[in-house]
């Protein structure tokens, strides 16, 4: 606490924007921490204007329907702010959820049409691992996110926030994929064979998101996966080759490496959705 305080004339000049920059800067630095001078500034501000702003604000807060997802998450016992954060993630908005369902349905139908008589679910397996990864990239970026400026300023570890959001997104998509896979014909094992590739893709995507914008990451990984899986299948002469146990170990290792890379550079995520 200092015993030094601003002069009313200086505050008036500041409010009229006639104070020079150096003194304005000095005032601003002081006002952030001095409640006495904040009060002085408040007393000399336009009370009607602030009042009007307040009433608009209250109307807005009252009108603001918390999203259905947020309410559901609250009911599931999540903390209020966590639920709001997850609920405001783009994946939770209905267009995104609809897109995920659509892709999932398309994979299912495609599979059913092409492989009506097959006993495995290879086609579905190729598409499914991409979905959680797409969920991760979508849940991260500013492209689709309206609230990220606020998020950036919030003293909530952005790294944890990014992880929370993307993990939430990945979990939901994975669950949807799992249910879809179970309804497909074929052994139940097929319903889980895409999970490790999905985990690896999601983990690599998250590691890359600290360095690159979401859209290139999503495109790059989608192409990389398709090329890799296609090439392996062609080379081995077996369409199920990318899902054999030995290859699954590779996915596990890849996910572990991506996890380590991410954990070692948490400050990469200081600027969540930094580029536009």
């Amino acid at each position, binding site marked *: 606490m*200092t015993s*030094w305080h*601003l002069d009313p004339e*200086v505050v008036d000049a*500041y*409010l009229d*924007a*006639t*104070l*020079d*920059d*150096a*003194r*304005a*800067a*000095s*005032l*601003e*630095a*002081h*006002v*952030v*921490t001095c*409640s*006495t001078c*904040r*009060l002085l*500034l*408040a007393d000399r*501000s336009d009370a009607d*204007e*602030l009042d009007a*702003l*307040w009433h*608009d*604000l*209250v109307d*807005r*807060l009252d009108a*603001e329907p918390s999203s259905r997802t947020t309410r559901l998450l609250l009911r599931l016992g999540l*903390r*209020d*702010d966590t639920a*709001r954060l997850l609920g405001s993630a783009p994946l939770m908005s209905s267009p995104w959820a609809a897109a995920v369902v659509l892709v999932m349905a398309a994979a299912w139908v495609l599979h059913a049409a092409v492989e009506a008589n097959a006993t495995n679910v290879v086609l579905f397996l190729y598409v499914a691992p991409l979905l959680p990864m797409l969920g991760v990239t979508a849940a991260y970026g500013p492209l689709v996110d309206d609230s*990220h*400026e*606020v998020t*950036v*300023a*919030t*003293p*909530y570890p952005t790294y944890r926030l990014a992880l929370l959001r993307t993990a939430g997104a990945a979990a939901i998509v994975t669950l949807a994929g799992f249910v879809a896979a179970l309804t497909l014909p074929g052994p139940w094992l097929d319903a889980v064979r895409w999970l490790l590739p999905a985990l690896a893709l999601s983990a690599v995507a998250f590691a890359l998101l600290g360095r690159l914008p979401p859209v290139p990451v999503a495109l790059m990984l989608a192409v990389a996966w398709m090329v890799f899986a296609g090439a392996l299948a062609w080379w081995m002469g077996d369409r199920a080759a990318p899902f054999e146990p030995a290859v699954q170990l590779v996915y596990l290792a890849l996910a572990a490496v991506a996890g380590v890379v991410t954990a070692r550079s948490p400050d990469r995520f200081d*600027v969540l959705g*930094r*580029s*536009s």
Partner: protein
Amino acid sequence: MGTGAERSDSELLALVADGDRAAFRELYDRHAPWVLARLRHRCSDREVVAEAVQDTFAAVWRSAGRYDGRGDVGAWIWGIAIRRLIGLLRRGGRHQHVVLGEQARDDEALLVSAEDQVLVGVEHGDLAGALLRLSPELRAVVQATVLDGLTTREAAHLLGIPAGTVKTRMMRARAELRGALA
């Protein structure tokens, strides 16, 4: 200051986190005036500033629980406010009109406090005078990065210039200030 029963900002914030509207109003009354005035010094579009103030306090209302007690509540609110303003300017494709430079008048009595000495730096020469002698472009960059604590990229968005330009202007400003204070 004399009003011992007054609740601190962080106490208010804790109440706001529990959905206490009265505490929220008190917090608004304390902080909205200076946030509004300060944002106005960053952007001359009154509507955008009003929206930024509302967005800021809406965010405070929603995320009061996420204030972790580190640092001043005022600084926390400002961090939200300035980024919200940048977000609005960016979305509108508008750039800020820096309210700077028109008033490079000389004033003898500089404001000095124990806290502000760091800023005004009277012991080390006339920093205020040196600041005022900077060109408006350089001063805007100093203001955004040093005083508002923005990253290079955020400053670039606020000022509507490339990030590289922010860096080079900051270097020039630093060199000029060093020269002026030497």
